[in-house]
């Protein structure tokens, strides 16, 4: 009994130590990000902002795709709807960006709750395809409502002069905005990874019948996860629109954005917080580096790297290292055997 108590105390001590360490780490990262901001030229500020944007997006996807195990292949629909909502209310109703931003998230979340009711009854590939269909369909809807959305010709957000409620933020301003969104998303991810709700989602991921049998309302939990993930995706979309000023349906509902989110989560380690974070930084960084140094073949090399990563560590980098630490076996060959497709 005494050893057990000691063990639990040890656990607690370790827990609070870990929290302090993490807190310190976050502060260092924020400080670094703020210092970098004053040093970098505009172009590179934009590149780092894009990394922040994908950190937020990958965390959002991880909530529904990683924790809950529902691979949303149409996640970009929330990005696009949050974005278009912002453009429309800023242009037609003269909303300030700071009011449009949270409302765009709510708009996406409500939409997710509505489509989630039927869609989340589907499993596996069926859910993936259905969400993809929703995203593709919504792009067509936006194109076919030219009076409201500008249709295929695009729409522009007012950014200067008396017509604009919120002045354009500039590279340095958007850098801060996307940094804030990334921190917000990582914070939400961390919370979900350690609370009752998140454990419910992980239980649903493993086995829905068993989850329901221990009292988890699987329908409500899944819809909440989907809405939360849509909220984050929606506010990121809203910010992206303000940054880009003029937007087109093809870009805002681009399936490539979903694919990037998924790749970042899967390569980094789905169902973890650090995984999508590293995946977003790593993939975006490599992609930028290749674009600069191997302009002609950069997508080719990037694809090769992604394929190699998926073959060698299909469970994602973070899960690979965690398992390696547990089993003391870092052999890639053994890993391929364990997870072979």
């Amino acid at each position, binding site marked *: 009994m005494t050893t057990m108590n000691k063990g639990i105390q040890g*656990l*607690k001590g370790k827990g609070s130590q870990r929290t302090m360490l993490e807190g310190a780490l976050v502060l260092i990262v924020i400080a670094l990000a703020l210092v970098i901001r004053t040093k970098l030229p505009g172009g590179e500020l934009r590149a780092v902002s894009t990394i922040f944007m994908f950190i937020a997006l990958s965390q959002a996807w991880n909530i529904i795709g990683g924790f809950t195990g529902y691979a949303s292949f149409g996640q970009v629909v929330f990005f696009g709807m949050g974005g278009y909502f912002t453009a429309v209310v800023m242009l037609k109703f003269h909303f300030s960006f700071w009011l449009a931003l949270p409302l765009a998230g709510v708009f996406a979340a409500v939409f997710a709750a509505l489509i989630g009711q039927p869609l989340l009854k589907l499993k596996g590939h069926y859910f993936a395809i259905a969400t993809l269909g929703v995203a593709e369909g919504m792009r067509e809807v936006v194109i076919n409502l030219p009076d409201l959305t500008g249709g295929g010709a695009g729409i522009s957000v007012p950014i200067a002069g008396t017509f604009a409620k919120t002045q354009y933020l500039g590279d340095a301003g958007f850098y801060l905005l996307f940094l804030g969104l990334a921190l917000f998303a990582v914070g939400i991810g961390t919370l979900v990874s350690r*609370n*009752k709700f998140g454990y*419910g989602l992980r239980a649903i991921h*493993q086995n829905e019948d*068993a989850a*329901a049998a*221990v*009292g988890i309302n699987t329908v409500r939990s899944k819809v909440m996860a989907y809405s939360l993930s849509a909220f984050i995706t929606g506010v990121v979309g809203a910010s992206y629109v303000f940054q880009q000023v003029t937007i087109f349906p093809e870009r805002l509902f681009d399936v490539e954005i979903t694919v990037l989110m998924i790749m970042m989560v899967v390569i980094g380690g789905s169902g973890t917080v650090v995984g999508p974070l590293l995946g977003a930084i790593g993939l975006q960084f490599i992609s930028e580096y290749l674009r600069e140094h191997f302009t002609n073949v950069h997508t080719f090399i990037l694809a090769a790297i992604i394929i190699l990563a998926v073959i060698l560590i299909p469970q994602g980098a973070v899960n690979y290292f965690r398992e390696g630490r547990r089993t003391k076996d870092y052999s890639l060959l053994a890993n391929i055997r364990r997870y072979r497709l």
Partner: protein
Amino acid sequence: MSTVPILETRGLGRRFGALDAVSDVSFSVNQGEILGVIGPNGAGKSTFINLVTGHIKPTSGQVLIDGKDMTGQAPWDIARAGVARTFQIVKPFNGMTVRQNIAVGIMYESHGTNRLSVALEQAEAILEEVGLGGSGDRMPGELSTADIRRLEFAKALATKPRLLLLDEVMAGLRPTEIEPSLELIRTLKARGTTVIVVEHVMKAIVAVSDRVLVLAQGKVLMQGGAHEVLADPRVIEVYLGHRYAKRQKGNA
């Protein structure tokens, strides 16, 4: 103590297409009782449990818990009413440690803690109870068959049930591994928990059941004391065929 049975079914039935998997099952269990449920393969035992816990919706009849009609309610509502179950085909949460598996049930129990750290501490006692003490940090995939059955048992206990439905938790266990499970069921009974034990291991049924219900082809064949039921020619017939039953009768 109330006289309302903790669980009562009235004409409970489920039809799959042309097949009546369970039909017209009416019975009740009182608080603190241990009810054994036996029957040959395909008798509808698992379907019956699924009907009670809401994993399958009945096509006829009613399920009453504490006298309250809970027919067709969602599994989580039944769970929160104090009914827990194990699955015949074990369903561990594979991506979590054994301790985390238990913590989920503790947090989602209606009066349970909402804090993960507290739930993880409380999980330890349940693991000790089922004989998984010291295995809290292992992953379900690393456990033996016997331990994975214990985990299934522990997951059900985590929700602090008043009524526990055990669907073959002793299947595949060695005789020496069965005894601790029986001891645990007796402990639960002493605490006032009602237990419904579905088993093929007759020794286990005889050892713990206050009463035995026999299902055959989805219907209640008979119910009564364990020894009385097992000696009944009708029961011998459904298990071993009518010729064996006749021979037994001749010998007697």
